[in-house]
């Protein structure tokens, strides 16, 4: 066993060397013109060895490629195929072309769900990231002990099963009773004993759901940004302070630019989470009142599993995947363009 392990390790490093050397151009993840990192490629000598390494490299890639092909690419292609069909999931499918896609635009419920999603993106992604950014900046300055404690506290919501979070928040947002928002407001004289049904009112439901989402994602963003800010050299802040920079100037001139990549990661992860949002909404409002909190994720579920409309569910799923790709690439492009 041990001998085998050694053999694998040595072949592995050979393969890595070969891969890095091949082509001689810039390495992945490093753009031309960026100083540092990319040294001159190690030269390869024997052509035969090069070819064997090439094969070995692909051999090592094979398990991952097979996994991705079977579990991600194949279902993706299949979903694309279903999205062009009218199919109940078991019986015979009928080819319907792009009508499932045009339905996304023409059907008021599906269209509305995309609008809701756009608003929820702010709550799922931008607000928690912004709040986390401010919080980590403050915590860096305070230099207090017990950072670990806060890290745990802020991250705690992420560790609770979303169904439980949704149930607890429906209680907190109930129209009346002890321990509810309305109860609290009433106690301090700010409202009637029975106040707004936050999750059932047309004007507040979407924001109420958004609030829960922001609460949920804040901890995640916090944990994503914290290591980043701890990486920034304290000298930078000291220098800025010597130059007379205040809290706000420090924040925008040092913290934000230095955390660019971490912010990008936080926004991407939470935005993808928003696009896939289902559990929270299903449990808290089921898309209601009316269609005020309907999101594509819930429609996909309804279409595929309740209504046996696998075609339109797939079309909506593919459309969401395209949106996720677009957002991810958009954020990445933005970060790379503003690179220092």
């Amino acid at each position, binding site marked *: 066993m041990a001998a085998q392990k050694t053999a694998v390790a040595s072949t592995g490093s050979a393969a890595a060397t070969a891969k890095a050397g091949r082509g001689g151009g810039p390495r992945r993840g490093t753009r031309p013109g960026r100083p540092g990192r990319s040294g001159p490629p190690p030269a390869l000598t024997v052509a035969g060895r090069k070819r064997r390494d090439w094969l070995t490299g692909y051999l090592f890639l094979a398990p991952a490629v097979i996994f991705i092909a079977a579990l991600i690419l194949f279902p993706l292609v299949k979903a694309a195929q279903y999205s062009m069909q009218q199919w109940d999931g078991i019986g015979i499918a009928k080819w319907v072309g792009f009508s499932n896609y045009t339905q996304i635009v023409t059907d008021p419920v599906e269209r509305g769900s995309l609008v809701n999603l756009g608003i929820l993106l702010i709550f799922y992604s931008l607000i928690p990231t912004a709040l986390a950014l401010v919080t980590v900046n403050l915590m860096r300055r305070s230099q207090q002990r017990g950072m670990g404690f806060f890290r745990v506290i802020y991250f705690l919501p992420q560790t609770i099963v979303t169904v439980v979070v949704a149930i607890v928040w429906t209680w907190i947002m109930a129209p009346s009773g002890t321990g509810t928002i309305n109860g609290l407001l009433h106690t301090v004289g700010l409202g009637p004993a029975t106040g707004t049904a936050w999750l059932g009112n047309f004007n507040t439901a979407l924001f109420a759901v958004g609030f829960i989402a922001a609460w949920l994602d804040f901890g995640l963003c916090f944990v994503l940004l914290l290591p980043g800010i701890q990486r920034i050299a304290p000298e930078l802040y000291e220098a800025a302070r010597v130059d007379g920079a205040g809290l706000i100037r420090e924040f925008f001139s040092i913290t934000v630019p230095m955390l660019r990549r971490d912010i990008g990661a936080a926004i991407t992860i939470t935005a993808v989470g928003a696009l896939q949002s289902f559990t929270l909404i299903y449990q808290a409002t089921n898309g*209601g009142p009316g269609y005020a909190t309907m999101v594509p994720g819930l429609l996909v579920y309804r279409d595929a599993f309740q209504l046996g409309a696998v075609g339109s569910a797939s079309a909506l799923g593919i459309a969401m995947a395209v949106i996720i790709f677009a957002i991810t690439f958009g954020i990445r492009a933005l970060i790379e363009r503003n690179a220092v």
Partner: protein
Amino acid sequence: MVGRRPSRLALRLGVLGVAAAALAACGSGGSGGGSSSSSSPATLAKSASGTVNEWNWDIPGDDPGEHAVIPILIRTMHQEYPKLHVVNTSMSLAEQNDKLPLAFASSGAPDVSQTNEGLQNQGRLVADKELLPLEPYNKLYGWFKKVGALPLQYNSLPASGKTFGSGNVYGVPETGTVVGIFYNRAVLSSVGAQPPTDWATFVNDMALLRKAGKTPMSYAGGQPTAYQPVHMLYTIANHYVPAATSNAFVFHKGSSPSINIPGYVQAAATFAAWTKDGYFPAGYQGLSDVQALNLFDQGKTGFFLEGNWYSSSVQQALGSKAGFWVPPVVTGGPGEGWSIPSKSPNPNAGAAVINTLLSPTIQDALLKNGDIPAVTPSAQALAGATPLLRSAAAGWSSSVHSGNLVPYLDYATPNFLNQEMAGIQELQGGKISAAALMSSLQSDYTSYWSSQG
């Protein structure tokens, strides 16, 4: 019960779906089909052995009565067929709707299972040839006569599975349900109101309660678990619309079945007016069904409009103060039908389970545990039931025989419940008018049926 909501399940099924799709693609064409290895329909020999897998939706939260008789079923089956081993699997309604179509298509199908009436569940299963017609077993056991024609109509579908209300019978129910009006005698008499015996008294009672500053009706209108909005609309509509008209709409019969008619619009307008007049609790939009029930059980409201399945809870909380009024035209229907999957490993054993469920042992036990038995109970069994349940059972029996039983309207199309729940919330929120609600529901209905060819 909450933990059983299928959020995780959806993910699991997503994977399953791909697998099933791949399978379906391989075996293209010949999906479903009653190609089980078993013999032709026959009564089960006493010496029968092996395992009988029986699936139902009888989790305690959803149907305490049917849940309570499962051990009795297993015991009775064991006495009858000592070498046979019954294995029970209970699941929530949502889980069942999601799971059965795939499970019945696989080799893991149960021997016998409950299926939900309507197009969403039974319709899909019949269309994909996943259920056996029960007529051959009826010839052996005589189930249909015991249960009566109307409840079986709900379980009847043509082979296409695209409509229901006629065709082969694919399910036999063990219970019946009616949506009626629970009332609190003490609360009513405190404002000088009489227990309702007709619609006019009921409406007048609510006005009296409102005038006295009380909340007339326990009602939950927002949360995903509450079905009061649709039950309220159906019950009001039953006052304005004859049973035959609603029946034609649900079963899609006649020349142009419609709910965009004056009676239904008037019902929706009444509903909106009650909302506006404060007949429902403040913040009803954020209440769950249990919270609405609690308000009634605590004596804070005069009425609670819901199905008889709440009768044991109400009986326990209010005792003799509680009453249950079943309007003359009433929304209700059989409990879930018992069906035999085409791929049932042992359909004859499955039929024996159904036959046992309709036996006096189980039927009387159902009444004892708060359910209306599908087979009209003996006077002796009735005498042992609670007063609330006696009213409910009498209402069921008379409406089944007079033809005044109206199916749950949401059976009409697979998406009807979703559209209706959203539409009623918009109606109550003042976003749309009563006429607009009915015309939009009707247009969804029309477009569904025209898409069915």
